[in-house]
């Protein structure tokens, strides 16, 4: 009996200790998530009581050309960013693992931009992208190339944002570096004895051995990129909204600028569903291509 009372006390004590987090989770996360599901089925303007609409918001979204554009832009950005980020982080990690002089300093420099606040980074990149005075076009001009109007051209605006987002490649780079250091040297030695070329070793040893890390980076890049919000909000000049509107920006604009909170909640739920579907697809593909070491 004493034993049971003691265990119950332990449980209660445990619950008491986690209660600040649990209450915070319920009040600030779980409840708003459930409320947003309810609001997505209503006409809700924040300052009026919600009025039940059923699935009308969802039907309207599928016919809304701005939303469709936002989805298309988000997918395009996500594809560009996930691919470029994965390849670039791997390339830089391979380079930095060559034990060249100053590689530790370069690694620190590559990681440094992740500590810069996003707004500061955006303003800096707006200057870099300036078509007349920007550093990028000035450098291109020296090489005889007439640089594009990066943010002011419909065809270049979204790729420019993807290019700018690579600025924070430091995180995936560290993951790749750690994975590369974990590849057993004996495998390379055995391959060398068998006369396998450098490219062959990369293809048959390095890539399979670090594939879980690459997969992790890809999944994180997809999840991060489908939530893209601040760069298009800050960097897109007026009139270019169609070229760079993303799902998150669409949701924000409808909720707070247009006062259509119910409609925005419906878009948010579609975004969540699409993100889950996208990640599930990546996971399914991952099962086929990822090599997990036993033990």
């Amino acid at each position: 009996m004493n034993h049971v009372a003691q265990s119950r006390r332990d449980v209660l004590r445990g619950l008491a200790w986690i209660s600040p987090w649990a209450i915070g989770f319920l009040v600030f996360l779980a409840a708003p998530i459930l409320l947003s599901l309810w609001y997505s089925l209503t006409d809700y303007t924040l300052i009026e009581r919600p009025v039940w609409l059923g699935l009308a918001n969802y039907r309207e979204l599928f016919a809304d050309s701005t939303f469709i554009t936002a989805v298309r832009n988000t997918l395009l950005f996500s594809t560009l960013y996930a691919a470029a980020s994965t390849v670039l982080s791997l390339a830089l990690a391979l380079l930095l693992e060559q034990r060249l002089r100053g590689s530790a300093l370069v690694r620190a420099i590559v990681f440094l931009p992740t500590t810069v606040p996003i707004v500061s980074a955006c303003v800096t990149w707006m200057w870099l992208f300036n078509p007349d005075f920007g550093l990028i076009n000035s450098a291109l001009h020296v090489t005889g190339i007439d640089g594009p109007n990066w943010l002011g051209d419909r065809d270049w605006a979204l790729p420019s944002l993807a290019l700018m987002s690579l600025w924070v490649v430091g995180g995936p780079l560290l993951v790749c570096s750690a994975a590369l250091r974990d590849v057993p040297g004996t495998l390379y030695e055995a391959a060398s004895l068998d006369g396998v070329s450098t490219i062959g070793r990369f293809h048959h040893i390095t890539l399979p051995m670090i594939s879980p890390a690459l997969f992790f980076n890809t999944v994180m890049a997809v999840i991060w990129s489908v939530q893209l919000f601040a760069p298009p909000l800050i960097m897109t000049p007026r009139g270019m909204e169609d070229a760079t509107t993303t799902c998150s920006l669409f949701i924000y604009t409808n909720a707070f600028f247009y006062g259509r909170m119910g409609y925005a909640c419906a878009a948010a739920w579609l975004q969540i569903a699409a993100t889950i579907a996208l990640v599930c697809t990546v996971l399914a593909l991952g099962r086929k291509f990822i090599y997990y070491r036993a033990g």
Partner: protein
Amino acid sequence: MPTVYPPTPPITRRVALAALTTAAASIALWPRKPRSLASTPRGRVIIDYWEKWTGEEAAAIQRVVDLFNASQSRTWVRRTPVSDIKTKAMVAIAGGDPPDVVGLFSFNIPLLAESGAAMALDELATPDTPPSATPYKPAVQRLLSYNGRVWAGVSSCYTLALYYNRSLFRNAGLNPDNPPRTISEFDAASEQLTLQTPTGDIERAGFLHNVPLWWPYFWPTVFGGSLYDHKNAQATIASQKGIDAYAWIQGYPNRLGREATARFATTYARAFHQADDPFFTGRAAMVVQGPWIASFIARQKPDLDYAATPVPVADLLYQADAPLGLVEADVLIIPRGCRHPQEAYDFVRFTQRQDMLELLASLHGKSSPLLNVSPSFTAQHTNRYVSVHDAITASPRADILPQTRVWQQYSDLTISAFQAIWDGADVKSTLQTTEYRAQSLIDHAVALRARRALLKGSGA
């Protein structure tokens, strides 16, 4: 087996003393009241007033607040500068804790009025205390009213005018004392003032409609068109006058080059009112701007030789004594659910006094929203071309923005339409698509409003 916890280390005297000292110091240093209330006289009712302005514009409205606070001993207005003010005001209203007075834009009134989030001023007025003792200019009166009721006081009003560089006019062989009045004259002047390099890059723009792209919906006005039929709740941007206006706009990139004009506009997209503003640096000879630009010129480029005139209009529409223009206003709204509505109303009434409106207008470089202005107003004004803006505001042909709750969406649609037209899209079909989409939004809002009224009527 019950869990065995290691013995808790004893609290030493030193640790206990340090903890007690820290606690005592914290209690001693803890402020007795918020810092914002430190300078508030005791016993007064505190009115929370949110306003969007910062810098010199904020200092100007603070002078009005200070004069109100000094004028009586019952109420104290505490002004808080708030960015993205409409969003925050809506969240505060939804959360049941709005400020007593909030400074918004006149186009916010329909949404707040329809949703019952704002108090109509006639709810708070008595026959002895009307919102304003002096009448407003008709366009301003229309901006403050919705569905037959007055919902706000005005803090300032503004119109757009053509600001031009007199030196560049002279250098190009144009008479700076005889600025363009019609579209034909304007196009000719713009062409003379534009300089392009042999490769087509724009060295100096005579005029470009997207420098800056702040009012893409303005242009039908100068062709006598309108964006909205208030009587029938119809979007009208694709009327013949609207088509004429945007076809005229499209002529500019067609002549000067789409790539070159887009490049020029992007280069200066974030430079306006700064030291590298293309108008201040002489890279744009003419710009359409509000009256506030005079204050920025005084600060950034005081030696700039410039003048202002009403925006040129379609040739057959020119009337010297009745310029065409669009009037917008900054307004003071009392949110429903605020703590002190009557005191808030007293403050709004104070701001509507002629001397207060003229003080604020003068410090902001704007025209007066009142029908009559005092003789000293124009003479002592900080913007020497305020009479141009005043004439547009007072003009019988002055128009106002569409009074619909979906105006912000409609406005954003006009940005996309403007850009598409600038990029070479067919004017008529682009405007028809815009009008169709805007009308869908208007109809949707009307239908939802009817549904809400029905539910309210049935008590649901």
